[in-house]
């Protein structure tokens, strides 16, 4: 299967602002056929997509709570249905927040412990190499990706964390350059350094760092590209 036969849908809410970055990287760097899904579109056609990306931004201005309004937008009903039918859904940054607010992923996002917006490069350790989002990542490889968010401090009740852990659903943790999971390498106060999680069946994942901003050499890191390469590999091998 050629990459150009893989179809990706990118949701666009009022206030989405990483939509075009994801679109460009998927189309031009990975050769996937990506297109936008406007939040009001009648998208019963979601079934035609091989995967869906909910990009970052400030959907609906992030008024009320980050992602809260977008989670109740019509298109999210279709996304929920798509996910329940094993469709692959990746939420990045605000997209992760939307998936949490929609109840598709477990947990909540609190404001960063600094109470400030944090834009910087972070290092990620991958904990599960079997998911559609991580299957092309080399074992023991520490990834460098940028974050840029105000509310990325992941929190969940003990029982939820246990369940995520047992299921292997905690897929990325913040770490230092050598791969050690330390307090100093946690950029936002996230519980157990959690940077990305999946649902129980691994077809839906959210992560705070931006893979679309680290898929080209000129930007200082191509590590984010592994996330997209994983999705493509998984779809091809399915």
């Amino acid at each position, binding site marked *: 299967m050629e990459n150009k036969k893989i179809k990706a849908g990118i949701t666009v809410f*009022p*206030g989405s*602002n*990483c939509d075009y*970055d994801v679109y*460009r*990287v998927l189309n*031009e760097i990975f050769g996937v056929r990506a297109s936008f899904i406007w939040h009001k579109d009648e998208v019963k056609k979601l079934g035609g997509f091989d995967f869906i990306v909910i990009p970052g*931004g*400030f959907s*609906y*201005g*992030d*008024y009320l709570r980050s992602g809260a309004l977008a989670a109740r937008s019509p298109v999210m009903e279709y996304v929920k249905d798509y996910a329940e039918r094993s469709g692959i859904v990746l939420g990045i940054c605000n997209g992760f927040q939307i998936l949490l607010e929609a109840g598709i992923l477990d947990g909540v996002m609190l404001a960063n412990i600094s109470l*400030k*917006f*944090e*834009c*910087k490069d972070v290092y990620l350790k991958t904990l599960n190499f079997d998911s559609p989002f991580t299957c092309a990542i080399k074992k023991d490889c520490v990834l460098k990706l*940028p974050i*840029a968010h*105000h509310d990325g401090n992941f929190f969940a009740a003990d029982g939820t964390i246990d369940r995520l852990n047992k299921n292997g659903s905690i897929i990325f943790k913040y770490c230092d350059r050598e791969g050690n999971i330390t307090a100093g390498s946690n950029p936002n106060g996230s519980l157990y350094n959690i940077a990305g999680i999946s649902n129980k069946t691994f077809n839906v994942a959210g992560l705070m760092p*931006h893979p*679309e*901003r680290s898929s*080209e*050499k*000129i*930007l*200082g890191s191509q590590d984010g590209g592994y996330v997209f390469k994983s999705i493509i590999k998984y779809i091809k091998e399915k």
Partner: protein
Amino acid sequence: MKKNTEKLFGLSAEEYDKICGLLGREPDDFELGIFSAMWSEHCSYKSSKVYLRTLPSGGGKVLIGPGENAGVVDFGDGDVLVFKMESHNHPSFIEPFQGSATGVGGIMRDIFTMGARPVANLNSLRFGSFSHPKTSYYLSEVARGIGFYGNCMGVPTVGGEVVFDECYNDNILVNAFTIGIAKKDSIFLSSKCETGNIVVYVGSATGMDGIHGATMASEEFDLKKNKRRSTVQVGDPFTEKLLLEACLEAMEKKLIVSIQDMGAAGLTSSSFEMADKSGKGMAIDLDAIPLRTSGMTPVEMMLSESQERMLLACENEKFGELKGIFDKWGLNCVKIGEVIGEKVIKFYYKSKIYKILDVGVIVNGPEYERPVKKPGYIEKMPELKTGDYKIPENLNDIAVKIATHPNIASKKPVFTQYDYTIGTGTVVPPGFSAAVLRVKGGAKGFLLDANGNSRLAYLDPYAGGLLAVVECARNITACGGFPVAITDCLNFASPEDPEIMWQFAEAVKGIKEAALKLNTPVISGNVSFYNETAKKDGDKTYISKIYPTPVIGMLGFIEDAGKAVTPFFKGEGGEIYILGRLNGGLGGSLYLDAAFGDFRKKPVGIDLEYLDYEVRLQNCLRVLINKGLVKSAVDISEGGIFTALAESAVTNPERNLGFDVRYDFSGLGIRADEFLFSEFSQAFIITFEKAFAGTKEINGILKEFDINLEKIGIVKKDGMKINDIIDLKSDKIKEGYFSAI
């Protein structure tokens, strides 16, 4: 004439008389409101115009110079870059969060009004002394405001400057810069209205915020500053993001004939200026204006500075399609009038003609050539005699103090609050010389820098204006780019004071000469006067004034963004060279301030010979870089050669480094402290790809430009050593450098 000048909203008694003469009677409240806004310093540039006209504004790659919402330069391949810098000083001092946020929002509107998608922001910020009790509040609120607006808009904030000085204790400065990219054949202007076009209002509804904002920004602060809060606008970046997308979509579909954003003086300036520039008039129905609150009077509607609004002209038959786009984005899109041939604006209110005002009368405000006088403090400025200062016993301690001074130290805690990676264009992030951005779909890129040196501008405003341009160019050249064009933000105290006006005239002259020599026309800009505040000390009142602060924003081009050079040392063993000449001095230096508490000594002479040399030096460095020979390059600026070396060592993001410098400066006839900390030298610290120095190729280039290159040391794994005068652990500087602010 009216006796009560309190009610004139900043107009002088003479200006009021002139208005009476033009109207043949006294103005009513509506007319007075419009005149006071349009004739304000902020909108009319009445004190500065005569000087601004002298600046070079065309030639080279310039497509559109000053006069439109922003300037435009040709970027090749059918692309243009559109940029401008603007001040939002007064509002930011009253309410730093909203003031800085709406400053960023306003400048981005100026850019997308022209049809360009904003792709990067910079800002130049000045706060009071770092230890002043209110500085941390202003710093954190201004940074939060800039991030709040820029991050939500999805426009990366890629650089700028943060400066602390006690002259800003009572007047902070917030200068915001935006650059956008557009296609050459689809630039939108405010001067294209045609008779019969309909006048359309789009964006947020009009509220009571920001009324008299333009007049407020044209006055000094008195002792009642806190009563001015209602003159500050409130920003909503989410709405502006929608407005951006809707406008660009409508532009792409060619539904807009002419457009201007509602910035200072809101509907007043946008309607009168569009009409004037197009040589037309308008009929405007005030009943149609979307309002946030009932009971607003016509003058309040006209003066409101509510954010996220635009005025545009459109062909009548295309209005339906235009409205469809704004409906999709959930924004107001209302027909409020019509373009007419007669050069007047006819206002309708409650379905009747309310007022008819002549466009020319309102727009052609006064213009002054205000008196100038060389300030006494400059006349009396003492020469620097190093003999007057005892060389400090421990230069290591002073070196640490300077390299970790809040003005030198890393501004990471500020710029990490800005999203600088969104848009996937940022190749060199904030924190280095100039920001480097790539353009997708090719190799080419562009560079941005904003700079000013108010300590120098205070001692010698001509040199301060000149050096602001030169310093930006150095930062761009050190990355391998070539300077193309500039925008300026001229921040001064009251123009009614002849000494301030003299400072202004001198600074503009300095900018002019540097811009001519470096071939960087001034394509846009802004003047902010009245940055002064009445203060009370016991029974005494006095005026606290900022130093003259000309700030330059510069654009440079680079053929291959991926080949941009960064300023930090790359690894152990690299050979360190000085390219240029050590002709600086300590007058006006950070060293004098930090070590002796007084920088007020004559700085070195900066003149046309200085500029001639500068051009050769920068051309020489650019050739070396473009040949792929240079690994790192940084200019010697604030804090002198020691600071340039220390920063080159500690800012390497991957590894810890140091240096060992052995340099015999006895031939220069200077002391150790002069060697370490002199400023305004014309020199770069560079390291080479290999030990290239001495090769025929390098010598040929040096000879061609008549520039000196001298080896001074070597990059080490740790330790900062200079002869027997400096010996420090790298960590000692690094820790302080990254934690000072």
